[in-house]
């Protein structure tokens, strides 16, 4: 029997990072991710690893940049307003093709918005957000176990592609406690960081390494790129490889479905409950839950639409992922939307409840 431990979603970030062999955490407090940074402050130094509380998210992400350039496994965590501040550093990480992990516990926006749950950062997380048109893999957990597992996967994918990877959680997943199997996951070998800046004398080739500006990135640290476009071509090739190889989703009771719900994060759990109730009424409803938000699992959703399924997108925002769903399906597909305006309370503690989703299902079918 495997041993299971009661863990909070935000703290599962820490367990996952430690199980992935994380060397350092750099972060700034922001609600609702404070229990992430507090976990690392408590647990990392005790394991001989590095923890630094930065003076801002701008600094946190540049510390991550430095740690990644030095070849170490490092991460930071934040929420909406802090994520906005990190865009400069994210763009620099992308420029230098550096592997790093960023965990975001989403809250409501815009501006200071609300410190409670929401899914309003989908677009700015999946579309880059900083200058320069880059792509980051984005993974969305829907349980505490999945937070723990996806953080480990994020470190693996970051090292596999030499690219930042984002774990997009939310205030519900971050603050609930569930039993989790805490163990190190094996994903396979990753390429050696032949570009890690360690001081010239510490490199096997004894040649200087520079992580400096355009045309010298992890992809081609020693000789640099001959032209700007050859540098762009390297990135284009990498992004296309990631887009083809790293699509992940969960299909739930969708085989015979007339209506397929698309939801990620905490609303996907609400939808599963609604689907359970709808099925007892004989309504054929299923769920496709994107686990990777970029690359987006367009193909399985399109396949359902092409077979005549209606689509319902449920997300706790005014509608962001719904654009990706509409782009994935044929023009004549019925795409319905249930968003944050259908929460059960008007203040920021309101939630999209299973009953609300069930009513929507009934109205469609």
């Amino acid at each position, binding site marked *: 029997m495997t041993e299971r431990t009661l863990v909070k979603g935000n703290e599962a970030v820490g367990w996952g990072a430690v199980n992935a062999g994380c060397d*350092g955490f750099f972060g700034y407090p922001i609600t609702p991710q404070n229990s992430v940074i507090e976990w690392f402050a408590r647990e990392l130094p005790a394991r001989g690893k590095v923890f630094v509380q930065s*003076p801002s998210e701008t*600094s946190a992400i540049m510390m991550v940049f*430095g740690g990644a350039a030095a070849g170490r496994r490092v991460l930071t965590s934040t929420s909406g307003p802090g994520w906005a501040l990190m865009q400069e550093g994210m763009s*620099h990480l992308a420029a230098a093709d550096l592997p790093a992990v960023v965990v975001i516990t989403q809250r409501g926006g815009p501006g200071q918005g609300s410190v409670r749950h929401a899914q309003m950062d989908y677009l700015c997380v999946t579309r880059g957000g900083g200058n320069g048109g880059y792509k980051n893999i984005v993974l969305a957990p829907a349980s505490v176990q999945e937070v723990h597992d996806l953080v480990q996967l994020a470190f693996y994918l970051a090292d596999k592609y030499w690219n930042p990877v984002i774990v997009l959680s939310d205030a519900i997943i971050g603050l609930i406690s569930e039993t989790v199997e805490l163990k190190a996951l094996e994903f396979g070998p990753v390429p050696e960081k032949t570009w890690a*800046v360690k001081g*010239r004398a510490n490199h096997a080739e004894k040649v200087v390494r520079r*992580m400096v500006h355009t045309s010298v990135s992890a992809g081609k640290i020693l000789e640099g790129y001959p032209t700007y476009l050859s540098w762009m071509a390297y990135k284009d090739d990498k992004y296309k490889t990631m887009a083809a190889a790293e699509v992940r989703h969960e299909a739930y009771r969708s085989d015979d479905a007339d209506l397929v719900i698309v939801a990620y994060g905490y609303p996907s759990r609400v939808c599963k409950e609604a689907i359970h109730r709808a099925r007892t009424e004989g309504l054929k409803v299923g769920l496709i839950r994107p686990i990777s938000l970029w690359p987006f699992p367009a193909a399985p959703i399109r396949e359902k639409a092409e077979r005549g399924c209606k689509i319902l997108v449920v997300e706790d925002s005014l509608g962001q992922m719904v654009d990706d769903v509409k782009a994935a399906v044929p023009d004549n597909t019925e795409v319905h939307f249930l968003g944050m305006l259908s929460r059960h309370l008007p203040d920021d503690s309101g939630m999209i409840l299973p009953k609300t989703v069930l009513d929507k299902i009934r109205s469609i079918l």
Partner: protein
Amino acid sequence: MSEAAVTKERVGGLQRSYWLPLQGCPGCQHPVVSRLIAEVLEEMDLDGSAIIALGVGCAACIAGLNIDAVLGSHGGAPDIATAIKRLHPERFVLTMQGDGDCIAIGAGPLIAAMGRGENITIIMANNTNYGTTGGQLAPTTVMGQITSTTPKGRDQQTEGFPIHAAELAATFQGVSYSARGALDTMANYQRTKKFLRRAFQKQLDREGLSFVEVISACPPNWHMTPLESVDWITNVVLREFPVGEFKNAKRADALSRQQGKAASKGNAA
């Protein structure tokens, strides 16, 4: 072997395949700062383990040296250096930044690193303006100085007063060494080299953050010849920004002072 020859082979070897030449505009003193850093690193046998975190701007021309370098965001060098030093304490980690990078856009990371007493060395080349972008007002622009964004000269009513980074650094308990050098005379050149050596030694002795500001000529943006620039440094800039050491202490000094205060507070209670 002469000092210059060793420097050229080991540290100053210009990487011709590389896009950043180790040079500036005619009369620019940033490459001289780079050369001094290279000489001291080599004389202290630190060049092999050294990693330089760079600021954005002309000061980054030091990347042409045969030393590992990392460049991130404008003003983020102290953050990059912090992470590298914490993760690799055995490496010698320094930053090379301009005045705008260091004390304007990068003031937050700088002050936070000084507050934490990070065991790194920060070098700020101060040319009293934004050189790379064409000579705009910097926090270090001297009173009355004409820049492209102070066409009538820096006016205290609208632009306030210059920030004295080296003096500011000296006020931090986490900073063990702070000095300002200049390159207008051979005497100041040698003093600056001495300041750098002491600052580097502080990091080796794990005494906390060491800071060296170097006044550096920017003839094109000052609209002067190189020789006029040197005279202007001697006669105007150094009156605002005097050369000298502002702090040379041990980390233990800060600790004992702190404990002394705590003790006296305890007595009063």
